[in-house]
C-alpha cells in the first residue's frame, strides 16, 4: 500500500505544482473561464432535466414510466461513456506513458504499479462524467421530493459504477495487450470504440426514435407501454444501480440497500480479479509494448505512389510544409476513426433532413423549409467549428517538440500559419458547402435561400478556420503527448466560445433582412428604401465581420508564436 501511495503522490505533486509553473501566469483567468463555462453546462443540464421531469409528472398515467425509462437510459449511457473513456485512459496510463520506463525500473511489483495506474485512470476517466451526472440526479431528487436515502444511495452507487466500468476496461486492455503490442493496441481500441459507437448511432437513427412520441404508429397503447417498461438485464450492473436508486426514490430502504450491496460486492470482486490477473499478465504485456511500435496497417514506404508533384508549382518552404502537413495527417492512424465518425455524423445529419415530416406540420411548408434552411446555416457552421476544434486548433500544437525545426528554419511564422490555414481551409470549405447544398436540396428551399446560405457559408468558413489556426498558435501546447487534446485547454475553450459568438452574430445580422425579403416575396410586395438600406448595412457588417475574423486571429497568433521566449 505504501508503494501504491508513493506512486500516486508524484501525480498529486505534479498537479499541485502546476499552479507554480512558468506557464501558469493566466491561471486565475483560465480557472474563472473554465469554472463559469462548466457551471453553465452544469446548470443547463439541471434545468433541462428538471423541466423534462416536471413535464413527465404532469402526464397522467405514464409520466412516471417515462421518468424511469429516462433514468435507465441515462445510467446505460453513463456506463458506456465510462467504459469507453476508461479504455483510452487506462491504455495510456498502463502502456504508453513516458514515465513508465522509470516506474518499472523501481523495486515495486507489477501488480502494485497496475493498481496505482488503474486508480489514476479511474479518477481521470470518471470525474467529469460524474460531475455532469450529478445535476441529473439532483433534478430527480427535487422533482420527486426525495429524502436523504435517495441522495446517499446515488452517492454510494456512482462510485462502484465508476470502479466497475474502469475495471472492465482495464481487464480488456490488459488481456488484449497480451496479444497485440501497445502501438497497435491504441489504434485497435480506438477503431473498435468508434465502430461500436457508429453502429449504435446508426442503429438508433434507423430505428427512427421520432416515432416513439407518436403512439399511433404502435399496434396498440398496451404495446407502447410495454416497450417503455421493458426492464434491463438482471446481469447488468446498471440494472442493480437503477433498481437501487429507484427504490431509494420511492423510500424503500431495504430494496435500495440490497441492490447497493450487490453493486458493491461486484465492484470489490472486480478489483480482486483484475489485481490477480494483472499481477500475472501486466508486465508481460508491458514488456511486449516496448518491443514493437507497430501500425494497424503497415506503412508501404517507398512503394506508395508519390502525389507531391502536384504541389511542385508552390515555393520551396510552402511545398515543404504543405507536403509534411498532409502526409503527417493521413499517416497518423489515430485520426482515421475520427474522420469516419465525422462522415457518419454528416450522413445522419443529412438523413434527418430527408425524414423531416414537413408536410404534416400545421405551418406552411414553404415557410418552414426556409426557416430550417436558415437555421441549418448556423448548425452547419457549428458542425464546422466542432470539426475545426478537433483538427485545425491543434494544427500548431501538433508540431510538438519538433517545433525547433520551424523556429530554426528560414521561414516566417506567418508563412507557416498561412500554409496551415490553406491546408485545412480547402477541405473544410468543401465539407461545409456540401452539407449546406445537400440539406437545402433535401429541404426544397427557394433559390434565394440556396444562394444566401452558400454565399454566407463561403465567407464564414475562412473566419472559423483562421480563428482555429490563430488561437492554436496563441495557445500552443508542444509538450502534450496527444495534441488533439489541446482543444480541451483554455485556448480551445476560448476558440469555441468566440466561434459560437461569431456564428450567432452573423445569423442575427442576417435574420432580420432575410425575413423581410422572404415575407416580401411571399406576399408579392417589393422592399421599401429603408428595408433596402437595412439589408445592405446588415450584409456589409457580415462581410466586415468575416474579414476581421480572418485577419485578426492570424495576426494575433503570429505575434504570440513569434515571441520566442
Amino acid at each position: 500500500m505504501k508503494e501504491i501511495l508513493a506512486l500516486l503522490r508524484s501525480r498529486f505533486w505534479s498537479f499541485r505544482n502546476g499552479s507554480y509553473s512558468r506557464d501558469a501566469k493566466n491561471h486565475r483567468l483560465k480557472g474563472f473561464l473554465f469554472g463559469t463555462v462548466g457551471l453553465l453546462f452544469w446548470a443547463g443540464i439541471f434545468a433541462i432535466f428538471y423541466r423534462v421531469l416536471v413535464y413527465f409528472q404532469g402526464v397522467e398515467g405514464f409520466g412516471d414510466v417515462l421518468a424511469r425509462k429516462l433514468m435507465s437510459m441515462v445510467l446505460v449511457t453513463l456506463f458506456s461513456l465510462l467504459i469507453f473513456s476508461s479504455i483510452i485512459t487506462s491504455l495510456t496510463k498502463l502502456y504508453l506513458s513516458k514515465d513508465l520506463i522509470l516506474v518499472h525500473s523501481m523495486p515495486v511489483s507489477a501488480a502494485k504499479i497496475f493498481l496505482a495506474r488503474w486508480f489514476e485512470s479511474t479518477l481521470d476517466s470518471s470525474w467529469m462524467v460524474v460531475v455532469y451526472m450529478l445535476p441529473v440526479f439532483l433534478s430527480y431528487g427535487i422533482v420527486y421530493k426525495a429524502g436523504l436515502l435517495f441522495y446517499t444511495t446515488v452517492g454510494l452507487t456512482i462510485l462502484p459504477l465508476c470502479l466497475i466500468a474502469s475495471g472492465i476496461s482495464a481487464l480488456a486492455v490488459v488481456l488484449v495487450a497480451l496479444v497485440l503490442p501497445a502501438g497497435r493496441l491504441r489504434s485497435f481500441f480506438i477503431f473498435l470504440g468508434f465502430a461500436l459507437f457508429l453502429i449504435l448511432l446508426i442503429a438508433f437513427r434507423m430505428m427512427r426514435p421520432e416515432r416513439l412520441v407518436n403512439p399511433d404508429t404502435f399496434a396498440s397503447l398496451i404495446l407502447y407501454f410495454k416497450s417503455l417498461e421493458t426492464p434491463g438485464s438482471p446481469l447488468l450492473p446498471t440494472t442493480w444501480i437503477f433498481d437501487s436508486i429507484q427504490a431509494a426514490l420511492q423510500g424503500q430502504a431495504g430494496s435500495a440497500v440490497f441492490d447497493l450491496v450487490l453493486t458493491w460486492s461486484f465492484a470489490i470482486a472486480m478489483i480482486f480479479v483484475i489485481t490477480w490477473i494483472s499481477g500475472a499478465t501486466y508486465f508481460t504485456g508491458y514488456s511486449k509494448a516496448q518491443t514493437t511500435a507497430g501500425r494497424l496497417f503497415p506503412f508501404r514506404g517507398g512503394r506508395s505512389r508519390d502525389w507531391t508533384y502536384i504541389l511542385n508549382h508552390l515555393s520551396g518552404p510552402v511545398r515543404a510544409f504543405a507536403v509534411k502537413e498532409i502526409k503527417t495527417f493521413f499517416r497518423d492512424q489515430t485520426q482515421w476513426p475520427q474522420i469516419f465518425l465525422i462522415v457518419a455524423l454528416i450522413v445522419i445529419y443529412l438523413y434527418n433532413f430527408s425524414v423531416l415530416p414537413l408536410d404534416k406540420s400545421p405551418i406552411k411548408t414553404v415557410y418552414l423549409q426556409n426557416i430550417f434552411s436558415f437555421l441549418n446555416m448556423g448548425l452547419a457552421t457549428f458542425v464546422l467549428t466542432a470539426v475545426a476544434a478537433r483538427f485545425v486548433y491543434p494544427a500548431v500544437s501538433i508540431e510538438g517538440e519538433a517545433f525547433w525545426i520551424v523556429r530554426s528554419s528560414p521561414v516566417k511564422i506567418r508563412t507557416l500559419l498561412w500554409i496551415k490555414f490553406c491546408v485545412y481551409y480547402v477541405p473544410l470549405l468543401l465539407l461545409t458547402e456540401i452539407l449546406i447544398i445537400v440539406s437545402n436540396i433535401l429541404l426544397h428551399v427557394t433559390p434565394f435561400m440556396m444562394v444566401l446560405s452558400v454565399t454566407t457559408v463561403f465567407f464564414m468558413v475562412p473566419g472559423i478556420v483562421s480563428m482555429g489556426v490563430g488561437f492554436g498558435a496563441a495557445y500552443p501546447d508542444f509538450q502534450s503527448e496527444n495534441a488533439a487534446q489541446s482543444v480541451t485547454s483554455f485556448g480551445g475553450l476560448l476558440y469555441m466560445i468566440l466561434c459560437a459568438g461569431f456564428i450567432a452574430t452573423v445569423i442575427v445580422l442576417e435574420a432580420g433582412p432575410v425575413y423581410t425579403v422572404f415575407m416580401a416575396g411571399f406576399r408579392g410586395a417589393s422592399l421599401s428604401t429603408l428595408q433596402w438600406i437595412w439589408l445592405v448595412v446588415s450584409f456589409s457588417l457580415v462581410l466586415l465581420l468575416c474579414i476581421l475574423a480572418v485577419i485578426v486571429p492570424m495576426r494575433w497568433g503570429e505575434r504570440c508564436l513569434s515571441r520566442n521566449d
Partner: protein
Amino acid sequence: MNDLQDHKMIELKNLTKRYGNTLAVNNLNLSVSKGEIYGFIGPNGAGKTTTIRIMGGVLAPTEGMVVIDGINMADDPESVKRRIGFIPDRPFIYEKLTGMEFMRFSADLYGVDERVFLENAQALLKKFGILNWADELIESYSHGMKQRLIISSALLHNPTVIIVDEPMVGLDPAAIKMVKNMFRELAREGMTIFMSTHTLAVAEDICDRIGVIHRGSLIATGTTGDLRRIAGIEEADLEEVFLNLTEEQEIQ
C-alpha cells in the same frame, strides 16, 4: 588561415537571457572566425543550450545580439537561418515522415537546388549509414539514427555555420569518429562550427578554441593551452582545467 580568421562568422554581443527571475545567460561576448571550430563547455545548467538556441534563432535574447556572417539575427532572421545548419541536442523530428521525405522537407525549406538534391541527400544518408532506412518512417528509427538524420539534413544546404548542441549524444563510437573527422574536414573547407559539449575529450580533440561558461557567464576562452594558463596548471588535461576553473568560480 589568417585571411579566414579575419572574417568573423559568429559574434555574440552582450547576449543576455532571463527566464523570469533566473539569469540563464549573462552578458556573453564572443566571436568565432571563419573556418574555426569553437567548443562551448560548462557544467549542467550553465547556459550552453540557451546560448545555442538563441544562436539558432529558436529563442529570442532578453538583451544583446547574435550576428552571423555580418547579419544581425534580429534584423533578418531568415537570411541568417539560411546560412546556419542547426543541430539540437534532442532529436525531435516529424515521426510520420520517412528519412528521405525529411531530407526533401529540409531541402525545400532551405532552397536546395532540385537537380542536386537527390544526389546530395543520398550521399549524406550513405555517409551516416542510414541510406537503407531512407524509405522507413522516422518513428521506427533509434535515437542515434534520428541524430544522424538531423546532422545529415543540417548539412544538406551547405551552410556556412554549423551550430550544434551535444553532437555526440546518442551516437555510437564509429559515428562519433566519423562526425569528428567530418567537422575537421568541413572547417578546413571554411565552415565555422560552434559546438557545445560535455565530452571534454571531443572538445580537446577537435576544437581550435574553447569557451568555458559557468552560471551564464563566459569565465575563460582560448586554446587548451590558454585555458591551462588561465587555470594556472600547465601539465593537465582539459578535464582538470575545466574542474579547476569552475570550482574556482564556485569558491568566488
